């Protein structure tokens, strides 16, 4: 595996399976009384989060601590950015403290790539702008595999704001690499141009996407999108694209419902679906720790001998 995890596109199929299998072993650590192994003892991991995040940051922090690493949380307040310190300067200052790994979340696509060029530490992309969120896709795949025993051949529908979603891009790359039949669905105003080239079916009909689906993944809709005239109202969005019990009935009877969180209840997903028997949303969160432990462990070793 390479020095950094910036994009799912950098992983081979073997890399992906290695991460998922390692996550399996890591999950067991979370089931013990003493949830700790000494594997990353003495290693320093910096969580550099430019965007507020409860879920992802906590998940990484727990993962790091379970591996006995020392964690440094740098929550970049908006004022620092306003004071004018560049991302590169911030990163180089942090490098001076000799971290082994930097986990970065940033609102600009490609922020991780910039750091990777400038820093010697290993960089883990925890979400860069609209580009990718690799560990989210990995934990999604881990969750799916846990229920369905495989990814190949499954019909997986991803519904929501496709244009602005980094979770979408990572999931498309990962699920197609593992042989799933991926359908993406959203309003025509939110379909990224050319996305079909990544090997997915594109539709604006939720019914078509969900028909006989094994997995339905809902993406967040941000209220700000109404400003950009992407859709007229939350009410209309829910009526046309929201996941309700009725819509879900068209999927396979053993369908699982997923959501990267945080959810907008009543916008992209009805509460009875989110809390219902098909939902694995909370499991995704639990799996996130195991998957991130696997990624941290696998990246912490030396660079792969060429």
């Amino acid at each position, binding site marked *: 595996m390479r020095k950094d995890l910036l994009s799912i596109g950098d992983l081979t199929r073997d890399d992906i399976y290695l991460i998922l299998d390692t996550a399996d072993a890591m999950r067991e650590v979370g089931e013990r009384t003493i949830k700790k192994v000494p594997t990353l003892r003495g290693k320093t991991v910096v969580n550099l989060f430019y965007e507020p995040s409860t879920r992802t940051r906590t998940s990484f922090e727990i993962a790091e601590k379970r591996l006995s690493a020392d964690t440094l949380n740098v929550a970049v307040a908006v004022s620092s950015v306003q004071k004018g310190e*560049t991302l590169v300067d911030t990163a180089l200052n942090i490098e001076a403290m000799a971290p082994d790994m930097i986990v970065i979340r940033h609102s600009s*696509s*490609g922020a991780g*790539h*910039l750091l990777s060029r400038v820093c010697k530490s290993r960089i883990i992309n925890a979400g860069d702008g*609209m580009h990718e969120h690799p560990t989210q896709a990995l934990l999604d795949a881990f969750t799916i595999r846990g229920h369905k025993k495989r990814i190949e051949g499954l019909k997986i529908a991803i519904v929501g704001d496709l244009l602005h979603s980094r979770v979408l891009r990572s999931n498309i790359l990962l699920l197609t690499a593992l042989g799933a039949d991926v359908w993406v669905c959203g309003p025509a105003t939110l379909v990224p*141009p*050319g996305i079909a080239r990544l090997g997915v079916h594109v539709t604006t009909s939720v019914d078509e996407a969900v028909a006989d689906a094994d997995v339905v993944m809902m993406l967040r809709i941000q209220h700000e999108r109404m400003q950009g005239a992407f859709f007229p109202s939350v009410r209309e969005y829910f009526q046309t694209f929201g996941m309700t019990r009725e819509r879900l009935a068209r999927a396979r009877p053993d369908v699982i419902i997923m959501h990267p969180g945080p959810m907008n209840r009543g916008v992209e997903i009805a509460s009875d679906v989110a809390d219902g028997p098909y939902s694995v949303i909370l499991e995704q969160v639990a799996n996130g720790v195991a998957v991130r432990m696997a990624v941290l462990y696998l990246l912490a070793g030396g660079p792969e001998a060429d």
Partner: protein
Amino acid sequence: MKRLLKGGRVVDPANGRDGVFDVLVDGDRIARVGRDLPVEDGVAVIEIPGGLVVCPGLIDMHVHLREPGQEHKETVATGTAAAVAGGFTAVACMPNTAPVNDHAGVTEYILKKAAEANLARVYPIGAVSRGQQGEQLADIAELKRAGCVAVTDDGRPVATALLMRRALEYTSMFDMPVIEHCEEQTLKGDGVAHEGFQASALGLRGIPGQAESIMALRDIALAELTGGAVHIAHMSARQTLDAVRWGKSRGARVTCEVTPHHFVLTDEMLAGPVAYDTNVKMNPPLRETADRDAMLAGLKDGSVDVIATDHAPHHYDEKQVEFDRAPFGITGLETAVSLCFDRLVHAGVLSLSRLVELLSVNPARLLRLPGGSLSEGAPADISILAPDLPVTVDAAAMKSKSKNTPFGGWTLRGGVAATMVGGRVVYANDRIEMG
């Protein structure tokens, strides 16, 4: 002081010449061009080595010299040094300085700096509107008197159809074109890259080609309405080229230019070799292969009038940031000739004669400049080019203050041997021996 440039291949399409000729320079003028001219006493002979081309001085009609106000990026002195190193004897510089070149004071300042540098000729382009704010016309007559050769609000389009109409009508009194940065602002939004598969895959906000063509269509219609002349700057989209062809077929006074990066590169550069390289970020953005190929076709069939670089220097610190935050623009003066030779002439897209039209004859004609030919009595602005010189682009060695180019490390075939302005050699490539 008389100089005889002996034995070079003279390419002078304005006078229908392409062959081995001698050029006699007397003071700052071209005295004579002919075969085997006699060598008189007191004439310094410069033997032009075989294979070199002698042509009318190249003119870059789209350059940002950044002075006054942004001297950390470039100055008139460093910009004109870059120009002559790139084989250009003249540049026309854009008004989006600080303060904006919307009154004679700034125009005169630029000309003063150019005279002090005494390298390439500088022809300032003034603003269309005061402060380039798009509300009121600038004092265009004053700008013309002070030395401006055209007007533009480059960086933005002229804000409203009404203002563009007025600008076209007004400038037609002074025989000046309005140079337009075609961009429908609401479609551009906060886009940073060409709207297409690459931007989608990389999570970058896109700018569709139609953002450019919609504005071009507006301006062409207004040129038709008013009889004024519009020159479309840095054209990048195939839809815009179609609009230009349509406008020309209807007799509208529309011309257009293409930059080297738009006929060489595509948006695939966003993904690699350096992902999210801010030296690949400019406006208008690099577009798809179909657009790049359309630009090549337009250069070939004559729909495109001019090659201009849109030389846009930015300081290293400004570009060493996230892609979204980086300013738009790359340098171009010192890579243009090599790219033109390598990707146009040697690639069989254009003849050398046609290239000289695009880089010298047409810019001179559009801006009513003395130059563009080696006629007797014309200013002795001469570019001596080396079509077969192997060149490796080295940003660090460039004369421009800024190094923001995506072509670093490229090996190209073709370069500059020497540049002469008003009879003085202002640049000589020390890799080439000239007697």
